[in-house]
């Protein structure tokens, strides 16, 4: 298997404060990987560093091409969709406009229309509400919209920052089910950052555990889930 994303010795800084201390990991093409860790461990920073939204050094390679020093918007154009913490919904625009924005860099307008229909098939609730202001959707619906918007890019890699945050357990199960389906059927490589370790490990095939800006553990998700020591000391369940 080839590596779609290769991160080597990544260090990131907020002003003078160093948040990542030489992080290295890689994602196999077509894999579903989760990055776990406590609050403040550097999970969000890792995702932000990949999209050059925070100052960082080290090597980030996507499909063999270096991403360092490229602007966020040009990194997105490589096919990396980032669903940020807080979802980044365009709350004053309609649901349909949000979906169109997801495909704003694409030139194939006929396929875009078909893709919007595909999203409505994935997430029927979005179809019901397609003319509504996105800010009026519930938290779960907004998270569905954020995932759908990211998929409209037809990404090769999708980065999700705590998609379960603030959602009811049943909604999270739904959402994770859809993520798994997208990963299998659409062959989108997914990296999902989570605090909800138990659920994320059920979903993922690879897992990394991160603590204070360093990778402390990596392996197959089911191995990590079944290792009681790791679970107790790092994942808190």
């Amino acid at each position: 298997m080839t590596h779609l994303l290769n991160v080597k010795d990544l260090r990131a800084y907020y002003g003078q404060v160093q948040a990542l201390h030489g992080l290295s990991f890689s994602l196999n093409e077509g894999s579903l990987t989760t990055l776990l860790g406590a609050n403040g461990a550097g999970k969000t920073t890792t995702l932000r560093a990949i999209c050059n939204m925070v100052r960082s050094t080290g090597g980030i390679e996507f499909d063999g091409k270096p991403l360092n020093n490229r602007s966020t918007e040009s990194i997105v154009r490589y096919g990396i969709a980032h669903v940020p913490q807080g979802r980044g919904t365009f709350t004053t625009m309609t649901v349909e406009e949000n979906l169109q924005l997801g495909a704003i860099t694409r030139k194939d307008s006929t396929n875009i229309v078909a893709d919007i229909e595909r999203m409505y098939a994935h997430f029927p609730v979005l179809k019901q509400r397609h003319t509504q202001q996105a800010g009026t959707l519930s938290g779960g619906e907004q998270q569905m919209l954020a995932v759908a918007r990211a998929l409209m890019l037809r990404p090769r890699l999708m980065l999700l920052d705590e998609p379960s945050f603030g959602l009811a357990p049943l909604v999270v199960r739904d959402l994770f089910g859809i993520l798994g389906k997208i990963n299998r059927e659409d062959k989108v490589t997914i990296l999902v950052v989570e605090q909800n370790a138990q659920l994320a490990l059920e979903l993922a095939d690879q897992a990394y555990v991160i603590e204070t800006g360093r990778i402390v553990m990596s392996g197959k998700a089911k191995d990590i889930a079944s290792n009681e020591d790791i679970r107790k000391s790092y994942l808190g369940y």
Partner: protein
Amino acid sequence: MELFTNQILAGIATGAIYACMALAVVMIYQAIDHLNFAQGEMAMFATFISWQLMQWGVPYWGAFVLTLIFAFIGGIAIERILFKPLAKAPILTNVAGFIALFAIINSCAGLIWDFTIKQYPTPFGSAPFLGSQLISTHQAGMIGVTVLLLVALFFFFQYTRIGLAMRAAAALPESARLVGINTSWMIALGWGMASAIGAIAGMLIAPVVFLEPNMMGGVLIYGFAAAVLGGLTSPFGAVVGGFLMGIFENLAGTYIPGVGNELKLPIALALIISVLVVKPAGLFGRHIVKRV
């Protein structure tokens, strides 16, 4: 009754000027969240360019189109050179930048074309419009152009991809970058469009107020006021605000004893303050519905 309708008509006619200016103000406000104090001077300078072209023998509409192109590129250039470096600076730094730009453009125009008042032609003629003494064909043309402009902008923002991208960049820059929008160029584009709209306003106003470097001073204040009244986030509101300003100013001048020409402006501005006390977002400002 006839006096009343005539005053309304005349108000709409002056209101068209304010509406045009307010549109330009709203365009830049949407892009960078600041009021551009130099907007009027940019419009004035563009109007001088069109006048110069006509002096050199270019026909009116040729000069009109060339000036729009000049204003569009000029607006983008000002953003790239002056305001892009100030993007992360505090508000006051930006305000200082706007004031400096105001003074620079004003002086340059004075230096190149001097401060004497110049006649400026109108493509619409100046006969009474439909027999009314209070509104001329030029003023009617002005109203028409303003409405056309508004409709064109509406379609641009609502139904084109680049319009959608510009709205997204203005609303949430970080999210916009995450869907691949080059927000920095969207801002520049907003400046270019605002500058071109201002140029249209300038060229329409010049036959009424005559061409000189200080021609936009009063107009810009009304334009700001109209934009605030209508809601700084709404191009439609800006245009309605402009027309309302014009109408109210005329009615107050005619019907309230002792107001006359001198007190029209303060009365109109007092009205705006009253509206804003009741509705801080302006008449058509965006209401954000949010569920938490």
